[in-house]
């Protein structure tokens, strides 16, 4: 019952956020960057729906659950957004000249270290296969954190849209920190309230995406 309650709340929040983002960002001819951010929220919403349907239908999942694929998809969409979206908005040359390449490597290093530390503390009893799947889940997060930090290190200059991109980058990085902290605290056990916190984070990402799209159009 608590599983259904928390997951339903998380699903409800992310579904409302996705529908809002779909109509205000997707259908309003916004740049691809913001559309991909909303797509990531859509992926997360679908993954939450899976958890609810799984709880209702009573399917048991031992070593592997396709839910992990949903989480991989969500992080991969963020990765697609940040790596493509930035070059799309600013142009490849502008990004290469202004955004420091090597300083931004700090982010994936920190994320990878926290993940490795969390993995050693976590209650891994399902063996190498489970660890391999976990690495697949966190690999896009590690790669994406590089692009997110690189965008944050861009000088502000006269282009206003950078302001909204930077806020989105901060939000996504906070989401990653929350996910990793949750892993450290719980040792990979389920902490239901974190799903609600993640859903609220996704909702904020949609709101900021809409504002960013409006600034871009202006």
């Amino acid at each position, binding site marked *: 019952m608590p599983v259904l309650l928390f997951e339903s709340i998380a699903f409800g929040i992310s579904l409302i956020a996705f529908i809002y983002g779909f109509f205000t960002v997707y259908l309003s001819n916004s740049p691809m960057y913001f559309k991909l951010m909303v797509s990531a929220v859509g992926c997360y919403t679908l993954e939450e729906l*899976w958890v609810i349907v799984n709880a209702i*239908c009573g399917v048991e*999942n031992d070593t592997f*659950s396709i*839910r992990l*694929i949903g989480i991989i998809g969500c992080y*991969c969409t963020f990765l*697609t957004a940040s790596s493509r979206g930035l070059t799309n908005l600013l142009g490849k040359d502008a990004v290469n000249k202004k955004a420091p390449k090597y300083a931004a490597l700090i982010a994936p290093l920190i994320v990878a270290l926290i993940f490795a530390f969390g993995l050693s503390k976590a209650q891994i009893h399902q063996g190498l296969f489970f660890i391999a799947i976990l690495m697949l889940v966190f690999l896009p997060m590690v*790669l994406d954190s590089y692009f997110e930090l690189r965008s944050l290190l861009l000088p502000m200059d006269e282009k206003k849209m950078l302001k909204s991109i930077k806020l989105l980058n901060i939000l996504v990085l906070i989401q990653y920190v929350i996910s990793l902290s949750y892993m450290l605290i719980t040792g990979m056990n389920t902490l239901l309230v974190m799903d609600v916190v993640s859903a609220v984070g996704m909702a904020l990402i949609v709101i900021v995406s809409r504002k960013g799209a409006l600034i871009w159009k202006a």
Partner: protein
Amino acid sequence: MESLNLTIFICLAIPLSMTLLMFKGHSRMLCAFLLSGMFMCVFSGEINGLVLNVSGYDTQFLAVNIAPLVEEITKALPIIFIAFLIKPSRQKIAEFALMVGVGFATLENISLLVDSGTISLGYAFLRAIGAGMMHGICTLVVGLAMFSVIEEKMVFFSGTISALSIAMIYHSIYNMLITSKYMVLGALLPIITFTLIMIVSVTHFRKISAQKNKDISKNT
């Protein structure tokens, strides 16, 4: 590998293959993708069977967690191939993707219904619409996503994985519902999704064409 799937595939594929000789251009491509969808159904059926025998998972676990993974990847293979080979337009890749999904669903439905023996007309109808739309929608999403991300390597990999993950989760939700007591809800899910997609597409395109007409009349 003598199996029911393969037998049915041969019975369907040979007459369809003859049309490949007679059709030209786009019609031939559509028929080829329909056949490739059917072939992928046989291929993924064999992989699912192998996993079932080797892993010792029960059929419900396989249907929910493994089958969507295997089937969506195999269905995406013809789309990836054509996307890199000829870089078709958005409309064409959508049509090809839909035909792969429809071909896959057609063979899957026939195999399942032949395997089940006597079934009611209502169940057959529900199964046909539900599975057909679900496979079509999933492959369509992957195809359209691939069109958007084909230009850059890094973006292509992560974008395709995102699209595949959405298709896999959706497929898994459908399988969970259709194999439970909520079978009707499972069959309704793709119908509702398809209806929503059509409503949004039609209203959105109407809005765009109205805007275009407005701009043209303003200029003239």
